[in-house]
Each structure stands twice: as structure tokens, then as C-alpha cells.
């Protein structure tokens, strides 16, 4: 039996490590993997399946379910590369241990570890949202939300990356790598992360100038964000947009807008196009409590309600419009009610799961019935922008109070720990990895060059316009606009 096991193990090892050197499962040649991706996975799957089947058959019935789950996990995840790598890695260590130490002794803890790591990743966990929703002209969604270990882990990782990114941006601004205006999102991460959990690639998001993390959520990379903030070539807008003008067409992210409130009619337009083109998606038009007093928002709301456009107006209420508190600028700071005839929900914006639930609910509603308003009760730790200390109109106690009691990342951390999804050590590892990812992106972004001079004239018009642009004195530089 042992010999047979060893044989299986060796075959697996050869397959995985032989072709590609010592990296084992890590493919160097991405293209090849892409091409043969399906084929290779199938053969790994087959081998793994065979190996595990023999294994379970040979050893112990109590491992049957664990092996099934392993297979089920990897396949159930859609055969993603990460899933398979994990599955095979775990299987390998398990098999090795079993062969080395004797099966039964090592198998049980190994099985437990693997089981824990792989098993309930996709199994549903139900949790209750602590802060109830408030509704206006609509039923509240259920406070019981279904999530999974993997989803919660992803929430944690993503929000942590976003937090590190914003803090890095803070120090970049102070060391003058970033100039102009820089509006940071730390404290509000739960809103964009929770939203993404309920959306797909058919949905569109448009927001205002506090857009670094929203860009990330829609599929942008930290490198793109940093490079754009520093005005380099590798930025998402080629360095020409800056902090307030980040876009991602592929990811369905429409900016990144400098003028307060101007994005709301644009959002209604995106929803109009979705309905016109019969795309089964919604648009989330995000704005702040300051922008909630813009006339164009009400115009957009009226039109979208009139024509039943699938738009969800998401008000990120961080309670301060730059230096003006909400009670000083709005007669009715109940922003979820200000749609009047448009139904609204007030959501605890520091709770990812609440945001996810609300957006899921709103999406179903919007696809059927037209617009809805979601007010996310959230908070920003930094000032309005890096030029604003953020403490002249609010107390430091208030800021630290919110940080202690409502911080979104801490909330998920507690959930992960209390539901035994991760240990303190594992969370620390995740944090370390996130920090490293952000630091790597930062150093790469710093190496990125500034855009070339002729980029000044590109993208004013689409190609083919053929106009000439002269230098300031009409003689020096002649550039044909592309």
C-alpha cells in the first residue's frame, strides 16, 4: 500500500514540478497555461481525483467526505487556478505526511487542516446585521444575510489593501509625490467592497472624486491608482486625469468626477443606456451628503423615476460636506427619504454585509421597478482632502470614537475570528501580504515614467480629426492631433 501511495505521490510531483522547474505549481509561462489551461487542469484534476480516490479507498472511510469536499471545492470554484493550486498543494502535503509518518497518525491533523482550509470556504454562513435598515416607501430587506468564509476573507483582504493604499497616498501627498487635490476614502471602504459583492460586470458604477478605492473595487490595480496619483504613464488615465479622474471602462467604472453632483445625471444616463440596450444591469450613481443638495440630483431623480431607469442612487453620507456638517446644509438630513416618490433605504455603511444586502435588494428592485435611493451611513477618518486637516469642524474624539466602535475592517476581523474562519496568526499573514502588495505596487509606480510631451495633445478628439496644434508662440512646436 505504501509503495502504491508513493508511486502516486511521485507521479503527482513529477507532473506538477517536472515541466516547470522548481516552482511546482506556479506557472511561469502564462500564455501557455492560458492555451492549455483547460487541458492541464483536467489532467491535474484527473490525477488528483485518482490519487485521492485511491487514497480514500485505501485508508479510511472517515476521509471520504474530506476528499469529496476537496474535489468538490476545486471543481465548485469553477476550476480557478488558485483553487486548484491550493487543492493540489494541500493534497501533496497530506500525502507526503502520510507516507513519511505513517498514515493514520499524520492524517487526522492534516485532514483537519486541509478540511478547515478548503471545506467551508464556499459553505454558506448566515449572519444577522446588527443595525436595522430604515425604509422609505419600501419594505426593508431581511437582516439575515448569507455569506461564506471566502467572502468574508475577501472582504477583509480587499478592505485592508484599500486602507493601506489610502494611508500610503497620505504620505505620498505629504512628500509631494501627489499634488493638487487628494480625497481619501479610509473609513468608507465597506461601502464599495460591500457593493461589489452584490454586483457583476454588467453593472455600472459612477462616483465623485473620492474614487481611489472604488476604482480598485471595479477591477483596477493598486499600481494603476498610485501611478495615476503621481501623474505617471502607468496610471489608469495615463497620468492626465489625476486623483479625481480615474476611470475603468472594462470594469464598468465611469469615474471619477470633479464637480460635485455632476455625476448623478451621468448615472441616470448610464442606466438609460442599460435599459435601452436591454442589458440586465443596474447603475449605481454615488454621491455624498454635500452633493445631496445639488439641483441636478433632483432633476436626475425625477427623470429616472419617470422613465423607470434601473439606477440606484447611493448617498455616501459621511456627515460632512467638506467643512459643513449635514445639519447645517440640509433641511432634511434623512437623505434616503429625499427621493420623495423614489423609495429609499438607510444602511449602516460601515458594515460590508449590510451594504451587500441592501445593494442586492436594491438591484432586484431597480431592475423591476426603477430607481431607488440608498443612504450609506459612513464616516471618513481623513479630512475632506489632504488640504483639509479635518479637525476644525469636528472633534478628534469623534473621529477616534468611530474608529474604535465602527471601523469596517475591525468588524470583519471580529467576524472572522468568532466564526473560526481564520486565526489571529492567519489574519496577520493576510495583513502582511496586503502590505507587501501595496508596497510593491508603490515602488513600481514610482519607477513609472512621466507621460511624454506629445501626450499633451492626444485624446482631445478621437483619431482622425487631423487638426494641428501649435506651441504657445505659434512657431515652435507643431503637432498633428491624432
Amino acid at each position: 500500500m505504501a509503495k502504491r501511495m508513493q508511486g502516486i505521490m511521485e507521479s503527482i510531483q513529477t507532473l506538477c514540478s517536472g515541466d516547470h522547474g522548481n516552482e511546482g505549481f506556479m506557472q511561469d509561462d502564462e500564455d501557455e497555461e492560458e492555451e492549455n489551461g483547460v487541458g492541464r487542469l483536467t489532467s491535474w484534476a484527473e490525477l488528483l481525483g485518482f490519487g485521492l480516490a485511491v487514497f480514500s479507498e485505501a485508508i479510511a472511510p472517515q476521509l471520504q467526505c474530506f476528499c469529496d469536499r476537496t474535489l468538490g471545492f476545486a471543481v465548485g470554484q469553477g476550476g480557478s487556478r488558485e483553487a486548484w493550486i491550493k487543492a493540489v498543494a494541500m493534497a501533496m502535503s497530506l500525502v507526503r505526511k502520510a507516507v513519511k509518518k505513517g498514515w493514520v497518525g499524520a492524517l487526522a491533523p492534516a485532514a483537519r487542516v486541509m478540511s478547515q482550509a478548503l471545506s467551508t470556504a464556499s459553505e454558506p454562513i448566515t449572519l444577522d446585521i446588527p443595525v436595522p435598515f430604515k425604509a422609505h416607501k419600501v419594505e426593508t430587506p431581511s437582516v439575515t444575510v448569507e455569506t461564506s468564509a471566502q467572502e468574508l476573507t475577501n472582504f477583509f483582504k480587499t478592505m485592508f489593501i484599500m486602507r493601506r493604499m489610502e494611508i500610503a497616498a497620505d504620505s505620498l501627498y505629504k512628500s509631494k509625490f501627489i499634488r493638487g487635490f487628494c480625497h481619501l476614502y479610509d473609513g468608507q471602504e465597506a461601502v464599495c467592497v460591500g457593493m461589489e459583492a452584490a454586483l457583476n460586470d454588467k453593472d455600472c458604477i459612477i462616483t465623485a472624486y473620492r474614487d481611489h478605492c472604488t476604482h480598485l473595487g471595479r477591477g483596477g490595480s493598486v499600481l494603476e491608482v498610485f501611478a495615476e496619483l503621481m501623474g505617471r504613464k502607468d496610471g489608469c488615465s495615463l497620468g492626465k486625469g489625476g486623483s479625481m479622474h480615474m476611470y475603468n471602462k472594462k470594469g464598468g467604472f465611469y469615474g471619477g468626477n470633479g464637480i460635485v453632483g455632476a455625476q448623478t445625471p451621468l448615472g441616470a444616463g448610464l442606466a438609460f443606456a442599460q435599459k435601452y440596450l436591454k442589458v440586465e444591469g443596474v447603475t449605481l450613481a454615488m454621491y455624498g451628503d454635500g452633493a445631496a443638495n445639488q439641483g441636478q440630483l433632483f432633476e436626475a431623480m425625477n427623470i429616472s423615476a419617470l422613465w423607470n431607469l434601473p439606477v440606484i442612487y447611493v448617498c455616501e453620507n459621511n456627515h460632512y460636506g467638506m467643512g459643513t456638517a449635514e445639519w447645517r446644509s440640509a433641511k432634511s438630513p434623512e437623505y434616503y427619504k429625499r427621493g420623495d416618490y423614489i423609495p429609499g433605504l438607510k444602511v449602516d455603511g460601515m458594515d460590508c454585509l449590510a451594504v451587500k444586502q441592501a445593494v442586492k435588494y436594491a438591484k432586484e428592485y431597480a431592475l423591476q421597478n426603477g430607481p431607488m435611493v440608498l443612504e450609506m451611513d459612513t464616516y471618513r477618518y481623513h479630512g475632506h482632502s489632504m488640504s483639509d486637516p479635518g479637525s476644525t469642524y469636528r472633534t478628534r474624539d469623534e473621529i477616534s470614537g468611530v474608529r474604535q466602535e465602527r471601523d469596517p475592517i475591525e468588524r470583519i476581523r471580529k467576524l472572522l475570528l468568532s466564526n473560526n474562519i481564520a486565526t489571529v496568526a492567519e489574519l496577520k499573514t493576510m495583513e502582511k501580504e496586503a502590505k507587501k502588495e501595496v508596497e510593491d505596487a508603490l515602488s513600481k509606480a514610482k519607477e513609472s515614467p512621466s507621460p511624454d510631451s506629445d501626450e499633451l495633445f492626444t485624446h482631445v478628439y478621437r483619431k482622425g480629426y487631423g487638426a494641428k496644434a501649435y506651441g504657445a508662440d505659434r512657431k515652435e512646436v507643431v503637432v498633428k492631433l491624432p
Partner: protein
Amino acid sequence: MAMAAAAPTVPICHGRRASPCSSKQVSVSVSVAMRAWASKSSSLSSSSSKSPRLVAAHATAVATKEAASTTSSSQGGHELLMFEALREGLSEEMERDPKVCVIGEDVGDYGGSYKVTKGFSEKFGSWRVLDTPIAENSFTGMAIGSAMTGLRPVVEGMNMGFLLLAYNQIANNCGMLHYTSGGQFTIPIVIRGPGGVGRQLGAEHSQRLESYFQSVPGLQMVACSTPYNAKGLMKAAIRCENPVILYEHVLLYNLKEKIPDEEYVCCLEEAEMVRPGTEITILTYSRMRYHVTQAAKTLVDRGYDPEIIDIRSLKPFDMYTIGESVRKTHRVLIVEECMRTGGIGASLRSAIMESFWDELDGPIGCLSSQDVPTPYSGPLEELTVVQPHQIVTAVENLCGKK
């Protein structure tokens, strides 16, 4: 240079008639004097015209260390930054006339995003220093409505670009109501705020609204460039019965200059002589004034004698001062921050050509910003805006190499 003794009444400089101002400030008296000299077509190549003290006023504004004659403003004077000068002017006018009020975002408790209205809320109360919600179209309209019935509001756009949201109100109601009502209503409103290309603020926050509003009939537009003229123009704008747009510049708020202690008001329609010269007239305003004066140092070294005029009044143009200068030098270069298409330079060029064609020895040069949205990247942004070396090259091309 006839200078009347400090009169009990507020001195107002009516430049056109070359009547003397009683201000002891050198730059104003110089500008008056220059105009007087210009009208007599006297030679200005005497050394006195090039003496350091004539450029001293603006020199202190850029904190250079030229031989200062600000001691000639021997009444004392006090030094302050541009935003403090604006604050002083606004405060004095609010004390003088209880109908003057300030409307804008974060002007009250926050003190203004560029600190122009710091302390006003405590001093004048929240009914005279109104913190508005973010609703530019509406509060500008409100200000215009209140002006129709006798108040004298000062509207602050946190950045001029935001006032694009109020374009309709400014164009249709503010500019045209006096006309369309047959003279019944006057709109003594002041709309002010920082605009222009800053330091990497992005496309939407680097607008030059003077080019968009210059077409609106009924509006007066002025651009301040030094703490002295900032205070003077602020006061004049508030006292003016017409709607005035006062263009400040984001990058000029920290300019330091010594201004007189006594009260003074600048003339809204008057241009300012920065440096008299004989060879070429360089017309500029706002931030570009400093690029021009920086280029002028190089030009003077190379033997040129440029006459630099800060046009200040963007609508209407001070064609008198400009014309006198053109008659003297016969060459014109306009240096502006607006874009090439449809900017102040474009209109000014056309106006000069129309009125002074016979005086010109050659085409009017115009250096403007590129016709592109202002990019965020630092090097690209620098390429967008006119730089001093380009001004030097342009002058050399127009005047011939020396």
C-alpha cells in the same frame, strides 16, 4: 507727479483723466504719472523710467530683493498676503455698508477655503456670512435676486470652475436684467473666486472662466494680481452698481506686498502700468504677469525695453492705456492663461487690430495656453501654460534679435 495730500475722502483713481491719486503708494502714482507722460508723448527712455523703484511695487509682491522704494510709501503701510488683502477689502466694505453680505460654500465657520473670509462669521454674524449647501446654481440665483431688491451680495465660488453650474444665472439674469427690465433693476453683485491653472489640480479645477463669460453683455470683469490691486479692486467691485466678476488666481494667494494703511480704491476699468518701456507692449493679467516680469529680466539683460501692462480690466478693456502704449511702441504681445481659442487674448487682439491698425508695425503676438484640458501630470501641465522662456522667444521674434 502731482500728488494731492491725503484727503479726508476716499481716493479713487480715475486714471483716464490722469488726475492724481492721493495715495502715496508708488505703483499707483506711477501708473498715473506714466499715463500723464504717455499722453504728452514724452520720452521715457530716461533712466528714471527704468529706475528700480518703478518696478519695486510689484517686485515686493513677488518677494524679490530689488532696491525697494517702498520706503517712499513712508506713511508706513503694512505687509500682507493677497488673501489677507482681499479679506481686508471685503471687511472694510462690509463695515461701511450693512447691505453687503457674503454668500458661498464654507465661507462662514470654515473661514473660506482660501481663508479670505476668516473671522467674518464671528464679526458679522451668520446672516451676513452665509454658509450655503453645495448648490451653486441656486445660491448664485438667490444672490442675484437679492441684489435686485437692494442688497449687495458677494458670491464666492470655491473654485471658479464650480460657477459653470451657475452659468445660466450669471449670463441671463445677472448680466442682462438691467437691460431687459429697461433699466429698472440694477444688480450690484460681486462674483469672486479663484480660478486659473494651479499646481496639478486636474482638468475640472483649472478652468479659466474669463474666456467663457467675456461674451455676456452687462458684466464687468476684473482680474487682480497683487495684494494692492486685489484690495482696491475688491472695494471698487463692491461699490460698483454693475455686476462684477473678480477673478483671483489659485497660485497668487500667498503673494506678499506692503499696502497703504489709508483707505484706497482702484479703478475697475483701468489697466496698470507694470513697467514702462519703448520697444514692445506686453499685455497680460493675473498670474501671467509674473511670468512676463520674469521674462522681462532676461529681456532687459539682452537689451530690450518692453513695456508691461497688466490689463486688469478684462471687460471692458482699457483701450485708452493700451492704445497710448501701442502708439508708443508699435508692437504688441499678449500673454494670457486662457486657451488659444476664444480667450481674452483672442478678443483683445481683435480689438487692438481694429482700433490701432495704423499704429502697428507687425502682427500682434498672442501667447496662450494650449487648447487641451489641463492634464494632471506636472510636466504636461507646465507645457500647457505659457512659460517665461516662450515669452522671451516671442519678443525676440517680434522685435528682431539683438
